[in-house]
């Protein structure tokens, strides 16, 4: 039991060592940028992880690519564009605002507005139903006879 636990721990520590392939940059500003960019990008191999988190071989390569591009003086946007040009919009965790996906951005607000309009219309209808209009002479006579009947019993 102890032995197998040790083996598992060893295996885990091995993977962790392997994951830190690229030498972290000493400059914390550069390191922050690296973190910011790689946390915005999806690892296409394991689609629910960011490139920053992923242990896939492809993510290693893309991290190396990001670091080297930061070092050659590329801006964050240029690096993200580089990735999108190769892997498509799917690589972005935060989709860019484009004509093709405009519904994605305005859709929720559109639904909210439609909801508000329906709510207001419905409320107005209800108010019209419950507002008391004065009784006509006929109706008044009817009501009176009913009341008389009831009290007469």
């Amino acid at each position, binding site marked *: 039991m102890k032995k197998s636990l040790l083996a598992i721990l060893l295996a885990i520590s091995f993977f962790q060592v392997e994951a830190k392939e690229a030498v972290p940059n000493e400059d914390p500003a550069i390191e922050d940028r690296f973190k910011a960019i790689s946390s915005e990008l999806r690892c*296409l191999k394991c689609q629910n992880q960011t490139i920053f988190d992923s242990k896939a*071989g492809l993510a290693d*390569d893309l991290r190396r*690519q990001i670091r080297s591009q930061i070092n050659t003086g590329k801006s964050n946007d240029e690096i993200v564009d580089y990735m999108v040009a*190769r892997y498509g919009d799917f690589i972005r965790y935060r989709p860019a605002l484009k004509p093709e996906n405009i519904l994605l951005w305005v859709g929720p607000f559109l639904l909210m507005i439609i909801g508000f309009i329906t709510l207001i219309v419905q409320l107005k209808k209800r108010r019209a139903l419950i507002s008391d209009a004065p009784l006509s002479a006929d109706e008044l006579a009817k009501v009176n006879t009913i009341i008389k009947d009831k009290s007469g019993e």
Partner: protein
Amino acid sequence: MVRYLVPLGIFAVMVAFFVVGLGKDPRELPSVLVGKPTPKFNLPELHKPQETFSPDEMLGKVWLMNVWASWCPSCRAEHPLFMQLSRQGKVNIVGFNYKDRRQDALQWLGQLGDPYSNIPADLSGDVAIDFGVYGAPETYVIDKQGIIRHRYAGAVSHQYWRETLEPMIRELEQQ
């Protein structure tokens, strides 16, 4: 009546979206490079590392670029098909060796056969990034002008070859 039909209608639309959406394979990503020229590269040949391969050598031909590696199990699954295609001379296949070790790759080909006309070896995986490769195997159809026409991620089956790749290649060869 209408008040029951409206939610039913909304429900039907949602079901339709789910049927279409959930039936799709999330791993099957469209390639942004379809319709664009093949990225330029120069990589050493696996068999003769002193020589290099560039996609420009294939201009004027319709060809398949098959991304493979000896560590990739699905590549083994699709390999017999490529062997058959190369024996029958149906298409030029370039084998893009992806993040592999030279001796492993050579041993793999020695065991299973070599269907490839050229084998550029991308040991670091940097050129593969230019193609938007996100795994192996992947297969690209490239036309006579060097434009990427199609990308398929995953092992190519006999059915996929017969129904999709072969008609596409025959059509491109006519042009």
